């Protein structure tokens, strides 16, 4: 469940759970979050919550709404975003679903029309008439900080610890070095013999792709399987010798 922590000058005033589809923020008493301060407009902003996602929209307030220091009109809230209205700060906290529920979390589910009318097309309130002109306006600070929590963002594609490279030892380009920066690097001549070096979290692997003859690693021919490369392995491919090494 997402929540907001209201604070001023570092003093926590209140904690608000985002249980409603629309949570309004403003100076007037009918708002869900009332902030009685003249810098805050009567109807200042609204947060629309759809399942686990929350969207903040400024309702044309006099003094504007900031998220992480940037003025916004519409913003897709990320965990730990700080919303500022005048001197007041609202920190957005979206706890990751409990570990027990995590396995089920990503299971594909069907959203039936009627089951959750708010999200079905026609789009819900934030796209209301007045917002039409703002549709293209992208909040400047929005995607800058990738969400630090939540299971969807955890698996940063693991990069290998060390950088690998190939040095050619024979042929016209002998001495040339090729740094393996891409996830896949092909070697050889298309139509004759091609091999690919794949970069994986465990290290680098060489696999035969096409051609009648298979590449040699340290004098031994590969089979169809991927072969792990070690530092200073010698590769022979399409008549060219090369050395794999870690930089």
């Amino acid at each position, binding site marked *: 469940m997402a929540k907001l922590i209201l604070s001023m000058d570092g003093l926590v005033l209140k904690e608000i759970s985002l249980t409603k589809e629309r949570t309004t923020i403003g100076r007037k008493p009918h708002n869900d979050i009332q902030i009685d301060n003249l810098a805050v407009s009567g109807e200042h902003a609204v947060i629309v919550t759809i399942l686990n996602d929350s969207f903040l929209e400024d309702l044309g307030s006099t003094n504007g709404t900031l998220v992480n220091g940037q003025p916004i009109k519409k913003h897709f809230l990320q965990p730990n975003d700080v919303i500022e209205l005048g001197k007041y700060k609202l920190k957005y906290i979206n706890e990751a679903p409990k570990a027990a529920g995590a396995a089920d979390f*990503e299971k594909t589910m069907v959203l039936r029309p009627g089951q959750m009318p708010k999200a079905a097309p026609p*789009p819900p309130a934030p796209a209301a008439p007045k917002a039409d002109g703002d549709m293209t306006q992208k909040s400047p600070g929005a995607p800058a900080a990738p969400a630090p929590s939540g299971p969807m963002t955890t698996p940063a594609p693991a990069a290998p610890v060390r950088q690998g490279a190939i040095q050619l030892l024979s042929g016209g380009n002998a001495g040339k070095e090729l740094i393996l920066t891409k996830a*896949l690097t092909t070697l050889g001549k298309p139509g004759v013999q091609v091999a690919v070096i794949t970069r994986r979290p465990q290290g680098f692997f060489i696999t035969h792709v096409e051609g009648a003859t298979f590449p040699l690693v340290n004098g031994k021919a590969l089979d169809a399987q991927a072969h792990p490369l070690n530092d200073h392995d010698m590769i022979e491919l399409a008549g060219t010798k090369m050395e794999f090494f870690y930089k």
Partner: protein
Amino acid sequence: MSLTDAIEIVGHTDPGMVRSHNEDSIANDTKSGLAILADGMGGYNAGEVASGMATTVLMTELQSALTQHAPFQPDPEGGAEAGTYAARMLREQIAKANHSIYSASQSQPQYSGMGTTLVMAVFYDNKMTVAHIGDSRLYRMRDNQFSQVTRDHSLLQEQIDSGMITPEEAKHSQNKNLVTRALGIDPTVEPEIHDYETRPGDIYLLCSDGLSDMVPDEEIGLTLETLGGNLNLAAQQLVQMANDNGGRDNVSVLLIKIHKEYPAAKGLFGKFLGWFK
């Protein structure tokens, strides 16, 4: 011209690194020019049952339907705006598969609520007809341009379409797993069906969200570009990349490469020639 000379289809499916069950199901038949992929959902083993039923029903029914009618002919019962016979066949057989899954889920309590996504293509006459329901996708690699052909039936896609969020923000959304259409959850379903021209050299990728959520499109494109010469290896590589990135969902891929043109044998003479091939 036989389809087996002109197109090559390989498939690979894997439970991933986290799940014990594989709820995805794939089926392909080069001779009939069919590729089918389904990503099942529902408790216990019901997801596997739904996706398995979808691929089995569609494969067997379409194989027999394709021998009875040439897919390239115009739809006999449709109006002027109707497409080819292939589109009609897909619509009818998808309705049949939907009915089978729906009846099973109604009559057997353990299958209650099961359903599946679907993406499938039938290749004929230098064309393909693509049908999809849910968030399983079809991508195309042509002249080193990698692009998504189908558009997901998902909450996220609707949010993108309505301008609520940008595609960049969508990558961080927590609502990735909600589809707005699925096979077998209601008495009827509306598949999205379109025809596309194919060209020699094209590579088509059908995949479940286990691939498209785990591996960025650019890396999928790079893999098809570099390993397009060895389709089997490319399929394995894609699955491996999804697993290296966490493999949190079942991952399935079907790759189709167009080697040559495959015009349909039209008219009596063409059919006559076709018998001798």
